[in-house]
């Protein structure tokens, strides 16, 4: 297990189990089978795993949306039944289930009031966050008319609304466009600077390139590996090198050099611009 970077723990999950009952025969289905995981304050933890591995269930338990069947869950030094703990939590749920009939700003006002913010405070902070995630011009639009990516951006705004100490992001990149990825990266950088703890889940390895300190891998409701992203996602002896200022015609020389060194290339493609640049410049 990788070392925890800072002192106090933001989340301590010990032997957490969770099951659901469903179907005609009320059959029991295990979602979490004894999850042991610690997240230290100020850390950005990535939670990886295939679909149905229990990532969202663990997030919902930590967010206080559901209650575990067994095990101990300590969040920000308390439990989520404590309103003061929930006041310090921000949560982006997986499927953006926000009230479809409300406009973005009105919904932030509602969520602000549920978080104990004053109307003015929620309005000011909400406007700033909508601007930050690129939705300022859609502040009055009903959420039901938002695309999936816009809802994801809105979800990010609401998670940051009350300046929480622990932010849980369940599949934050799902449906996000390149610009949305930039927004998320920026918000995560700011959170890191502010000492905010972040847990983000995904089933795509590329999503953890946004600066996770540690990566926990969950399979079948259990944590199977925890470590630095490079340790877990990198293959020994395999490297990705960025090259600038080389003519395409001379790429062959570089490959020959690598072959001479006993290595082989697994793929060569042009880099340097990403999709968000294309969006900004119109191609």
């Amino acid at each position, binding site marked *: 297990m990788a070392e925890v970077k800072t002192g106090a723990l933001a989340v301590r999950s010990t032997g957490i189990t*969770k099951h*659901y009952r469903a179907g005609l025969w009320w059959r029991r289905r295990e979602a979490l089978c004894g999850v042991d995981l610690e997240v230290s304050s100020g850390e950005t933890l990535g939670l990886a795993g295939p679909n149905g591995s229990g990532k969202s269930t663990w997030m*919902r338990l930590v*967010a*206080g*949306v*559901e*209650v575990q*069947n067994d095990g101990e869950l300590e969040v920000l030094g308390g439990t*989520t*039944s404590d*309103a*003061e703990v*929930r*006041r310090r*939590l921000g*949560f982006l*749920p*997986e*499927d953006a*289930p*926000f*009230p479809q*009939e*409300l406009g973005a700003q009105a919904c932030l*006002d*509602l*969520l602000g*009031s*549920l*978080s*104990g913010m004053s109307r003015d405070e929620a309005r000011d902070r909400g406007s700033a966050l909508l601007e930050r995630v690129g939705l300022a011009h859609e502040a009055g639009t009903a959420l039901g008319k938002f695309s999936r990516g816009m809802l994801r951006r809105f979800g990010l705004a*609401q998670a940051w609304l009350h300046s929480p100490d622990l932010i849980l992001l369940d599949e934050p990149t799902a449906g996000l466009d390149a610009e949305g990825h930039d927004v998320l990266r920026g918000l995560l950088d700011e959170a890191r600077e502010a000492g905010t703890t972040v847990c983000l889940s995904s089933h795509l390895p590329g999503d953890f390139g946004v600066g996770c300190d540690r990566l926990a891998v969950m399979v079948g409701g259990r944590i199977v590996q925890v470590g630095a992203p490079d340790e877990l996602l990198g293959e020994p002896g395999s490297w990705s090198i960025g090259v600038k200022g080389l003519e395409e015609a001379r790429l062959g020389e570089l490959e020959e050099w690598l072959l001479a060194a006993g290595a082989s290339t697994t793929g060569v493609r042009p880099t340097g611009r990403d999709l968000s640049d294309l969006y900004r410049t119109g191609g």
Partner: protein
Amino acid sequence: MLTSLTSLAFRRTVWPTLLVGGLAVGWVLWSGRAAAGSELATWSHAPGVLRYAVWMTGILVAGPLLIGRAASIGHRLVGIDAAWCASRPASRLFVLGSSWAGAALAACVWVVLLAATAELGAGSEESAALQPIGSAELTHLGTDESGVVSWELQAPRNEDAAVLRLPVGLIATGGPSARIRARLTRTESGEAVERELLVATTRPIEIGLPPGEGPLQLVLERLEDGALVLVPAERAEWWRVMESPTSASLLLAYLGILVSATLLAWAVALGVWMRPALATALVLAVSTALWFSGGALGGWGVVMEHIAGGNVPGSPTLLGSGLALTGMVAAGSLGWWGLRWGART
């Protein structure tokens, strides 16, 4: 109270109710007006009948809709809405209470609109409206060979009592109706009120209270051969004359708000624990029982009969209001328990 959550629940409940209920009530009013020129129009102008039609349509169409929406709100609080609601520091009791308040507010708006529509549509009353104010125990004194039956009863406690209403049954043996004479006499002073009545339906018979004080004697006498008239109950009711029949809708509105707030509280609470369709069905089953049964919160069927007859329902009792409040608190506790401990797990 979380006003923004109340506003959301109100919004989710009021529009479908206004739309569907409004269309149904509008149709009732339109069909009443459309028939005004025809021979069939009499029903719509009879005192209280249009008022009855508006209330019945409003309750039967919008009632299940309101209950269904409230159950759905409760279900969302542990389902889809839990994701953004449960992770916030707001108390779950406040979340539940605010959501219920929104649904109850929608019911209030609907009931007030219904009362206003019923009164505007009812037109002027052609006969005095009555309101029940107490019951009278009948002590059977005897039946003589010529078929004269007499009872003794105590003087009404309420000074406003003006009319005695006696429930009757009818067995059409010797004909479809019966002609009878009813006489109500003060035992001590001998002052009496006498009426000849043609009993052709099971509608209660009415006879005025004679002046004076003290116990009374009621005598029913068959005047000619015809149907058999039965007096099935051992109680009759004292009624008073209402000066303003408009109070019928005011009283109905109060009762409607009280009952609907209680039923909606149960719909929200049960919605927390089960699927909205099942929660709605359960609450509707209880509502149906309340409709047909008596009791402090029940007897709506009887109340609506009074309205149809151009009369005014009885005043709400303290017991009824207390029961409604207790019901709301019990429902709130059940719902809170579900939210607190996760009803779905």
